[in-house]
């Protein structure tokens, strides 16, 4: 028996491909799969691209750092897991040339260095990209060191007990992990020369780093080892966790892409539901006949189920191929962003695509398809005996459940999926009522149209036709308004995202950080940069301090085991004091410092040392607090310049790390740190044309460290630009999915419309008249749908901004014009075009069409 089902299913599928509803179904499924696979591919690659980039900044996918050399057992374990290892040693030492001495940050690299990226070095023939460090016997200096020591290429410098030839000036290091703690100028040497320098002695302050490059699987495999290392106090930087800089903007872009992909899938689902309805209606006669010849209900469902399954699989294949092509296009767009060749696309996104097609089919077509098994064999004798359509709640319920599961699958969040789903259900109920009222209102308005012009006549007749099919019209109105709403959402959110991104990183975003400005240099420095610089952040005082106690315990004992190797415990922290909350910071718990008491005014000079009995209130960055397990009221002790300061956390701050402005983990109130030696930090934007200033600053303020973040900034801008293009590509898919809904809806109502136009023609209406009436009917439907879509989009975008995208909502006036008019035009034109063949039919054929199988 089962082979019969296959044969019957196969045969009718082959011939059915010519039917409009099957084509609509097919196109909708293809679009759903294409959107799903393309986005899955894209996010997969974006993820990998980001990791690659983060790996480059860190110097490897995994970086371990400690005070002692790493043992061989650890190296062997890592190598077994598939990592390639590279050794690096960092220390500060005095470098000399002739009579000049300079404390310098030495970085010794081996021959594997760098794992990713290239050094930009001037070896006398302009800046070159070199994928290695200096060879043994040579050293590369940064421009600041060269300036301070008056070095020229080829000259030798004294490093500990040995001499090395300076053969290159480093413009940019492959790994940018140096950070702001790096006050001293840089000299890069080869690890082979390290022994000869005699600088590596027990007790000297040396950081040994093990940089490992490897796959995500390798990283996964060594996680238990990493937790143990953290507990032992080794600083562990994992590329997946310590991803720098790109933060919020990309997280938003990913949210947005997932949202857009799901909208495309939802729209395709609506189209599938509509075309299935027509498909089932068209096949009821066949089903009745099969029933007559002895087919069981189960057999009917199997035959038609198999047919749709075949359709879904074919659609998955084509959709997945389109998705693959789409991701190739995306890859082409992203080629600058991903500097290294990536592995071939995996099978996971493909599987996801097929799963999506099947889920959409089952969820959106399932209940309607079951109607076919209800068909009575008696229908062969009495045509009017159609089975009842499935209950509305069943169709909506099944579709919601399946869509909810897809939401969960794609977003990875149950609460988000449930929230969207429940919200959607409530909205749908409200919409059903609203669509009835709206349709009634529009029709009442049209009915009052007077005038004998052909167009007002067409509008009246079209309105009446719409009114006759009130229920069906209501359903279509709902579908169209949801489509318009979704399309509007995508455009709205996209526009606002772009605006936000652009305002977040305006052209004059600071591209230089100046660190270590001494209080005595402060005014001179500001005066020096003022003529050339357009924007400058405030000058923040900065004091270096070490966290020595948490709630009376040694920090390593007090923090969670996983945080024992945290950089905040191992290094000196940059502390600042501020009277007011810095821009871009937000208090998330506790209170900002109270204003200083005015009575202190004239006593300030006298009371240079504040009371030390009561702990100083401090404000801690929320992320650091979470990592170290700190809460409000915890007491921390800092060691600053040999003194101990007892503090208590009185507030936690969240801050936006994306802003490229100086940010601080710990902020003290004014008058608590001034007595310690401090320097200032600031950030400013130096236009390309004013780059000469840098040389002047290096010369006039040799102590000041200038950090160029142009490269990082440029990378962030690149990523945003490319993600934007990717988003546009996805938007095109969503628009196509919307049009497929239109097509499916019009296909579903085609026979009834054919009957009506046949009747009109019998009663003497001409071609032009019928054409106008049809156009008017569709346009009215489009107008009403557009109005409702606009209302929905306005409400939903406000909610989305507040709760998901973290943006401030604003009204969209243009929406209320574009959607209703655009809707009328789009539905009007497409509907009119689809009815073209109907208008060419002889009335007899049109009238007979209703009864055809």
């Amino acid at each position, binding site marked *: 028996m089962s082979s019969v089902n296959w044969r019957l299913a196969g045969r009718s599928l082959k011939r059915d491909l010519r039917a409009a509803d099957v084509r609509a179904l097919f196109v909708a499924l293809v679009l759903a799969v294409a959107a799903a696979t393309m986005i899955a591919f894209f996010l997969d690659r974006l993820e990998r691209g980001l990791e690659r980039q983060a790996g480059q900044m860190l110097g490897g996918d995994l970086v371990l750092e400690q005070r002692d050399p790493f043992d061989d057992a650890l190296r062997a374990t890592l190598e077994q897991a598939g990592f390639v290892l590279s050794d690096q040693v960092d220390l500060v030492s005095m470098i000399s040339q002739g009579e000049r001495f300079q404390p310098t940050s030495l970085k010794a690299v081996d021959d594997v260095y760098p794992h990713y990226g290239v050094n930009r070095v001037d070896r006398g023939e302009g800046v070159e990209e070199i994928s290695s460090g200096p060879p043994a016997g040579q050293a590369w200096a940064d421009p600041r060191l060269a300036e301070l020591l008056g070095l020229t290429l080829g000259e030798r410098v004294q490093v500990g007990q040995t001499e090395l030839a300076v053969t290159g000036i480093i413009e940019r290091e492959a790994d940018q992990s140096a950070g702001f703690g790096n006050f001293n100028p840089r000299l890069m040497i080869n690890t082979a020369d390290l022994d000869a320098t005699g600088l590596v002695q027990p007790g000297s302050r040396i950081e040994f780093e093990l940089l490992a490059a490897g796959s995500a699987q390798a990283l996964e495999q060594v996680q238990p080892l990493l937790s143990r290392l953290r507990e032992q106090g080794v600083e562990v930087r994992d590329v997946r966790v310590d991803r720098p800089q790109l933060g919020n903007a990309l997280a938003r872009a990913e949210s947005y892409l997932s949202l857009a992909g799901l909208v495309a899938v939802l729209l395709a689902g609506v189209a599938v539901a509509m075309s299935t309805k027509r498909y089932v209606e068209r096949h009821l006669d066949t089903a009745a006949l099969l029933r007559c010849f002895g087919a069981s209900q189960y057999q009917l469902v199997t035959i038609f189920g198999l047919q749709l399954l075949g359709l879904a699989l074919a659609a998955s294949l084509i959709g997945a191929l389109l998705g693959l092509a789409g991701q190739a296009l995306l890859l082409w767009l992203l080629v600058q962003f991903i500097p290294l060749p990536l592995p071939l696309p995996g099978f996971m996104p493909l599987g996801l695509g097929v799963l999506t097609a099947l889920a959409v089919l089952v969820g959106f077509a399932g209940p309607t398809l079951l109607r076919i098994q209800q068909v009575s064999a008696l229908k062969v*004798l009495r045509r009017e005996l159609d089975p009842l359509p499935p209950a509305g709640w069943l169709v909506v319920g099944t579709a919601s459940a399946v869509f909810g599961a897809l939401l969960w699958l794609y977003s990875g969040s149950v609460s988000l999926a449930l929230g969207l789903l429940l919200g959607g259900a409530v909205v749908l109920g409200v919409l059903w009522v609203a669509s009835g009222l709206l349709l009634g209102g529009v029709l009442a308005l049209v009915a009052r149209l007077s005038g004998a012009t052909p167009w007002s006549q067409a509008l009246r007749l079209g309105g009446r036709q719409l009114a006759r099919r009130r229920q069906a019209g209501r359903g279509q109105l709902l579908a169209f308004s949801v489509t318009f709403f979704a399309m509007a959402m995508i455009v709205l959110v996209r526009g606002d995202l772009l605006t936000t991104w652009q305002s977040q990183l305006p052209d004059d975003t600071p591209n230089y950080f100046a660190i270590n400005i001494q209080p005595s240099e402060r005014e001179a420095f500001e005066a020096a940069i003022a003529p050339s610089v357009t924007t400058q952040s405030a000058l923040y005082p900065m004091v270096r301090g070490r966290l020595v106690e948490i709630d009376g315990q040694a920090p390593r004992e007090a923090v969670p085991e996983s945080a024992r190797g945290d950089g905040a415990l191992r290094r000196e922290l940059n502390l600042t004091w501020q009277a007011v909350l810095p821009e871009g910071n937000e208090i998330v718990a506790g209170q900002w410092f109270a204003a200083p008491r005015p009575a202190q005014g004239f006593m300030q000079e006298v009371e240079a040392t504040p009371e030390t009995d009561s702990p100083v209130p401090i404000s801690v960055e929320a992320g650091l607090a979470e990592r170290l397990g700190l809460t409000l009221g915890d007491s921390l002790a800092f060691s600053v310049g040999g003194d101990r300061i007892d503090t208590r956390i009185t507030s936690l701050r969240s801050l936006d790390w994306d802003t490229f402005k100086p940010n601080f983990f710990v902020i003290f109130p004014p008058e608590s740190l001034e007595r310690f030696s401090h320097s200032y930090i600031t950030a400013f934007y130096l236009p390309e044309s004013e780059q000469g200033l840098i040389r002047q600053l290096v010369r006039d303020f040799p102590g000041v460290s200038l950090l160029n973040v142009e490269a990082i900034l440029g990378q962030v801008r690149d990523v945003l630009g490319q993600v934007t293009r990717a988003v546009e590509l996805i938007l095109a898919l969503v628009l196509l999915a919307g049009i497929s809904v239109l097509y499916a809806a019009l296909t579903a109502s085609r026979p009834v419309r054919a009957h009506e136009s046949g009747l009109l023609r019998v009663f003497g209406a001409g071609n032009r008249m019928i054409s106008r009436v049809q156009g008017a009917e569709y346009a009215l439907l489009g107008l009403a749908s557009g109005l409702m879509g606009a209302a929905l989009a306005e409400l939903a975008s406000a909610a989305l901004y507040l709760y998901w995208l973290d943006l401030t909502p604003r009204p969209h006036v243009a929406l209320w014009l574009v959607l209703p008019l655009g809707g009328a035009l789009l539905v009007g034109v497409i509907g009119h075009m689809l009815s073209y063949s109907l208008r060419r039919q002889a009335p007899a054929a049109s009238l007979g069409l209703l009864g055809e199988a």
Partner: protein
Amino acid sequence: MPQTPGVPHASPVLLAEKLSKAVRSGERSLTILKDLSLSVAQGESVAILGKSGAGKSTLLGLLAGLDTPSDGELSLFGHPLSRLDEDGRAALRAGRVGFVFQNFQLLPTLSALENVLLPLELSPRAGESQTARDWLERVGLGERIDHLPKQLSGGEQQRVAIARAFVADPELVFADEPTGNLDPDTGAQVIDLLFTLNREAGTTLILVTHDHALARRCDRCLRLAAGQLNAFDPAVEGGGDE
């Protein structure tokens, strides 16, 4: 004139006792068939005549097990239909009952051959495509087996339907106004074919029609009026249509 038109036979193919069918029409209940009894013997051909709206199609639907009576008992091939559900009744029909409809009821997406194969495939004899070809030969369409229904004339379509009705060697064939959609000449050819094949195959035939001339060719004629079946002789009561 006997009150019960059923001719008693040893093992009737079809036996209906006190069948009633009422349908609800709004508030009112409308009785279409009332206490109707019928027995059809194997190999017999029975014509059921009646005016439009007399309930002929309703009766045919009941007799073929496509519908259920409001009251009364009906058994097909000795199986009481009241004990079977819709699927059970369908299984009983599979391969044993053939149909010829007024509007042909060919599947538009299947070729002539595939349409004829359909009942075979739903019976235990799936896959015997040569049988289907033979039957199409016998109805004179051997050259047109690959044509779709819309490429065939009305008469040709009905001949495909007749081949389809007989292909699975059914014990019983129901014909519902088989010439209703055909012109008189074509209709006559189709009817000749139907009766010839029926005679050759020894099949039981139940034919619903309003055409007296057609009814006369059956072994027995019954008239449906006021929800009851009565024996009727078209030769005596004159030709013409109901």
